[in-house]
């Protein structure tokens, strides 16, 4: 009974200490302009500390055996399982949907090169052609022969498809897409976004390197070095995988996009030829 009373006193004492430290940390972090989510985090750390110190002075657990021990054990497993699943679910979750479309595009060319991919592409083309033929037939039936002269045709006499970057052949737009797909933004800043000092800012790269040189850099990262990035160059920070991962066409698109980046107000470092 005395043990329980002293433990209760301890709970109150440690709880108050935890609260005081927590509130103090919230005050300090607020003064230092930490976002609210970090203030909550520091408060939680203070309470965790209080819980740890509470545990240190907790009264001894009475020995258990038989069914009581078994039930306690099972309850313990349920609690830790719940805490771990709950804890993991509390952290911000990455949305796989963000990645699915990207992966589809990244692997499109490689999938097409496989036997299965070729068969799938053939089927898709057949289906698309059949749909287009149906559409033409319906239009012809609806407007009659006179309208046929006004029907737009492509250079090869075919029907132009949609206005997406891929279909319209807008190299720069496709290159921008490659910038996102290859996650270049993880190392290079552009328009003030992305990058963590692993690579130079790219806003003015179009004024500093020719398309040919840019292409050489992407295919062989050792061929050029950005001034002031000697350490990163020595550590081979830029992966030399793009020659294996990207199709020629995709590299052309990326280079076309990079060549348009001509903002002299951003201090993109000079490129030094190394090979």
């Amino acid at each position, binding site marked *: 009974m005395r043990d329980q009373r002293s433990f209760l006193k301890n709970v109150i004492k440690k709880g108050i200490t935890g609260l005081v430290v927590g509130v103090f940390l919230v005050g300090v972090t607020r003064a230092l302009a930490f976002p609210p989510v970090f203030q909550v985090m520091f408060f939680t750390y203070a309470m965790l500390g209080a819980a740890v110190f509470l545990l240190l002075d*907790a009264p001894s657990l009475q020995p258990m055996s038989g069914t009581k021990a078994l039930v306690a054990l099972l309850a313990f497993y349920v609690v830790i399982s719940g805490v771990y699943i709950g804890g993991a679910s509390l952290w911000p979750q990455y949305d796989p949907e963000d990645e699915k479309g990207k992966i589809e595009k990244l692997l499109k060319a490689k999938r097409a090169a496989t036997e299965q991919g070729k068969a799938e592409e053939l089927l898709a083309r057949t289906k698309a052609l059949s749909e287009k033929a149906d559409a033409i037939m319906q239009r012809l039936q609806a407007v009659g022969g006179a309208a046929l002269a006004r029907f737009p045709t492509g250079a090869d006499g075919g029907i132009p498809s949609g206005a997406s970057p891929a279909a319209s052949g807008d190299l720069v737009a496709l290159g921008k897409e490659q910038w996102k797909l290859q996650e270049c933004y993880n190392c290079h800043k552009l328009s003030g976004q992305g990058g963590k000092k692993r690579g130079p800012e790219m806003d003015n790269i179009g004024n500093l390197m020719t398309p040919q040189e840019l292409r050489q850099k992407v295919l062989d990262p050792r061929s050029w070095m950005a001034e002031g990035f000697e350490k990163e160059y020595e550590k081979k920070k830029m992966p030399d*995988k793009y020659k294996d991962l990207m199709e020629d066409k995709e590299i052309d698109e990326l280079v076309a996009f990079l060549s348009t980046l001509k903002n002299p107000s951003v201090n993109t470092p000079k490129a030094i030829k190394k090979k």
Partner: protein
Amino acid sequence: MRTWRTWQRSLLLMLGLLAVFGTAAYAQVPTPPAAEFPYTGNRTAVWIVAQLHILFAAFILGAPIFVVISEWLGYRKQDPRYDRLAKEVTKVTVILYSMTALTGGLFIFVLLATYPQFTTWLINHFFLIFAVLYPLLFIAETIVLYLYFYTWDAWKGEKKGRHIALGVLLNIIGTVTLFVIDGPTSFMNTPAKAAEGLSLVEYIQTASLWDKVYNYSWMPLNLHRLVGNVTFGGFIAGLIAAYMYMGAKNEEERSYYDWMGFVGNLIGVGALLFLPFMGYLLSFELCDYDASICPYMMADQLSMFFEMQGAMVGLIFLASNYYIWLSMKRIEGVERVRMSALTVLVMVALPFVMTYVWTIFPVPDPKSLAVLVPLTLAPWILSKGMPPLGRITVSSRTVIKVGFLMVVVGNAIWMTPHGFVATQALSTEHLELPSDWSFLALMPAKNSAAFTLIFVTVVNYILYNRAIRQGTIVWGKIDFAAQFVLIFLAFSAIWTMGLMGAVRSLVRKYFHTYNLMPDFTAESFTPTLSYAAWWITGITLIFYMVVSFAIMVTLRASEAKAPEAAAKPVPAGAK
């Protein structure tokens, strides 16, 4: 009992033959269509079976390392407790060895059924390993393990040295097996880099087996797994001790299993101290292989997995130090143990000083050691060299309490993220650390946090050692809560292993073999941490059920059969 052993042997033989001939035959068959697992999907099905296999394999490879050391200690010190510990863990190892083979066979079946094209491709690239080396090593290990176990009672006294040598041989074969199978595993993460002028695909077609095995992450993975397996084995030994303590019928048993729990925890924590360095080495090599892996792990899709890892490692260190605290409470005369106040000062200063030092001299720059080594050794050097300083002491209770405070501080630093977002692409300043404080999320701060946790734990063990020498330890009288701490440690170690195993697989992104063999299935995306946590918990619970069953059928059953033998262990040196 005889039927059970025969069944085990038949199963192992069957799986060995399957591994030798089945994979070889399958590799020649034209690509069959992939099976589709209902509910879980193919990737998660492979995940479950692979993770279970790795957990069992980790135990059977890790446990024999300290089993032999324990047997040797028992022989040298003539302390029968060490011999008994070694034998009991070996008993459990034998059962779990069958489970390793069973899940290994299942792993091959599931992999072949779900990813036939990739599996065939991988087997063809490592044909010598999959069809010859690995099965031969597995069979050799089976033979030596059974010999080791069944000669235990026959080879004692003068023959004990022979038995210990057999255990050493078992460990050599086990380690070689681990290194061999790590070849294809690490290759999937970091395939050999192409020679100048060749594409990766062209190079791999002509590369030798050694070129493929000796890749960037092979040795770091070997070391990480080797140390991880010992940690894991130690904590499982602690789990065995906790179960047996809970079911102990007399004081003698409680006393023995209390001691066994202490040893298991000591082995687990001792190896755990090296684990952050091994993990760091592995991730360093992964990033060195391809710098884009780093942001994927630390800043993008997997960043929250690493937050969870930080939380788990922090909890493991808290729990292991709490176990020391509970152990100290039952040492008579512990209040007389004191330690230099400088130790407490170093403890408090360490995370702050080392964050600054490692920012100026980032790892692996050896210049940082010029501060780290003198700082950590300062309490001992100054106490000896300047006696007046050495006389300023604090009680063991104060040292441990300050230590706990610093473990909480270390955990807080480790867990502080750059931003509360799962990917940097979505980051806004409302969710990010202020730029002046962003160093808290960088590697120097994380390294100093890890080092603080290690330093505090080492200090606590030194203190504990002094307490044992100066006071009297009363085995069998430990706070009952300590048994739950041991169970918690084993559960958390397994869970963390599952989490980091998932990370190692996921860093391959949408490839089966990074940059080489794409995964065209719809499941090649990064799952959420929450989804991963459900499955990791499920896998951990399944593993726990099997291990609990193994402990019950081996130790509890044999105890019920011959209680007198268990109560009076034969001294290791006795004939």
